[in-house]
């Protein structure tokens, strides 16, 4: 059975792009439009990989990333950050949250800054899923 990859992004254009890339490479795409829907989907579908946007309404990628990395049930799911904001801003907001709430989360292994060529995206996915 093909592996499940969840795309969490509020931008319809990005979703259809990533979904197409996934389909072209024989993965099974799942989609969610925001952080909350994304988490529900992860609980329900147990995807093999999550492609996560950062700036979204209703539970940003910053928070969903934290939630997944600090939850024993989900911290093994590989995550590819896929976003328009720089890694520096992302890490800065994580740091701010750490200072505020305590705890530490690892830096994302793969951080792709949009725009990303399909080849680059698929290389990242394959690196994680083989």
């Amino acid at each position, binding site marked *: 059975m093909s592996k499940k990859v969840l795309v969490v992004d*509020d*931008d*319809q*254009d*990005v979703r*259809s*792009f*990533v979904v*197409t*890339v996934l389909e*072209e490479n024989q993965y099974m795409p799942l989609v969610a439009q925001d952080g*909350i829907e994304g988490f529900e989907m992860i609980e329900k579908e147990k995807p093999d990989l999550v492609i996560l946007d950062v*700036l979204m*309404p*209703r*539970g940003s990628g910053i928070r969903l990333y934290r939630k997944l990395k600090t939850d024993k049930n989900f911290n093994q799911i590989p995550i590819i950050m896929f976003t*328009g*904001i720089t890694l520096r801003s992302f890490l800065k907001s994580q740091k701010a949250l750490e200072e505020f709430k305590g705890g530490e989360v690892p830096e994302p292994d793969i951080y792709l800054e*949009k*725009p990303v*060529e*399909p080849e680059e995206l698929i290389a990242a996915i394959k690196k994680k899923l083989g």
Partner: protein
Amino acid sequence: MSANKILIVDDEEIIVRLLSMSLRSDGYETVTALSGEQGLEVFKAESPDIVVTDIKMPGMDGLELLKMIKEIDPEKEVIIVTGHGDIDSTITALQYGASDFINKPVRDESLAIALDRAKAKIDIREKLREYTENLELKIAEATEDIRRKSNFQRLLIKSSNDAIVAFDHDWKVVVYNPEAARMFGEAAKDVRHKMTIDDLYTPKIARIFKNQAKKEKQHNMLPWRENIINTKDGRQIPVRYNSNVLHEKGDFVGTVSFFQDLTEIKRLETELVQSERLAAVGQTISGLAHYVKNILIGLQGGSYVVDVGIAKNNTEKFKTGWETIKRNIKRIGDLTQDLLTYSKQREPEFEPCLPNDIVDEVIELVKDFAESKDVFISKEFDPGIGEVAADSQTIHRSLLNLINNAIDACIEDEDTSKKHEVKVKTYRDKNNYFCFEVKDNGCGMDKNTQKQLFDPMFSSKGGKGTGLGLLVTSKLIEEHNGVIETKTSLGDGSTFTIKLPYEKAN
């Protein structure tokens, strides 16, 4: 030191010896002489404290001796021994400064009393001298203290970073420190005790001080005020100043004022504004770049999906990709239009139009999208508005912006338990405006967001907003002589109201 040495002068040796013995037994030290001349010698040699002399003696008599002694030392006490009824001599002795008289024959008690009195006088005189000397010392100390303090105050005034200027009750300058000289461009020597308030200050400032002195009974400090000072050498100095009317026991004695040079502060303020402006330009450009990048992401993604559709002959994919491309082309179009609207002055084109119908059109445009996000749009129209003369494009675009913002605020809201709603209301107010109210119960805004609401390229929507919407809206409304009002509360939603002058279509 108590007086203890007594000179006894009498031409009768027996009396001298008797008195001397008697006094020695009382603890005094005595020296003796048997004539006026000898008495004077002994006086000079021994310097006794008290002299007891017989008045009648051959040669230099007691009066003569008294006179000589008083010439040498007026403070010595001389007790005169007289015979009965010798009034004239007594008066002369008094005139010469005798301290006391005892009658012959000299009785021990009366001598003791006279001596005690003389001693008491000497004591008092000594004490007085002590006090006087002390007083002089104290005055010298106090004077030095005052000098030190006044010097300290002078230095204090001199070294102050504030310009300090004080006037006496005739409005003559009495205090004028170096900073004042620098600020006003007049040397202290030309000002102090020479100039009056009218010579130094502009009429406007002088008037303020004079009025203040008239008005105030007690010394009340005025609050700090700001003003511009024109100096003699033609500089303009922004200053912050305050002054104090001085009263002494209720009488007006003068005023003192403190001036602070604000030149540096004003320069820094200007610099700050400048740098804020530069930062705003930077934010504008980076915001714009971000937005354009998002369009590019859309176009690249869309063309990839189209490519896949073509390669796989998959119409569905082809359509999805093409929709994406078209949507992003529209975003470029909208952005360009917003940028042009923002950068160009545009006269509104007044034409007869129906505001309520325009709102309907706009709602129709966004309704499907809103409902797909569980946001409901309701409307409440005032049919009394009817037809007005207005720029329909202004109304259309402004409302589209506000309603889209309201929908976004609902989508952004993390409180999913709310039933999200955007209420659009039209009405005429009592100031003859026709108004559009767009009210949402979405996420609302914090103070910081509110502050930047109308800043160019500020967007609370990440890369999804141009940051031009409200800016363009407010510009359009302004050009239409209207106003735009905002009410918001974080977590409860926001209300934006557009008010345009009501003019009937003719």
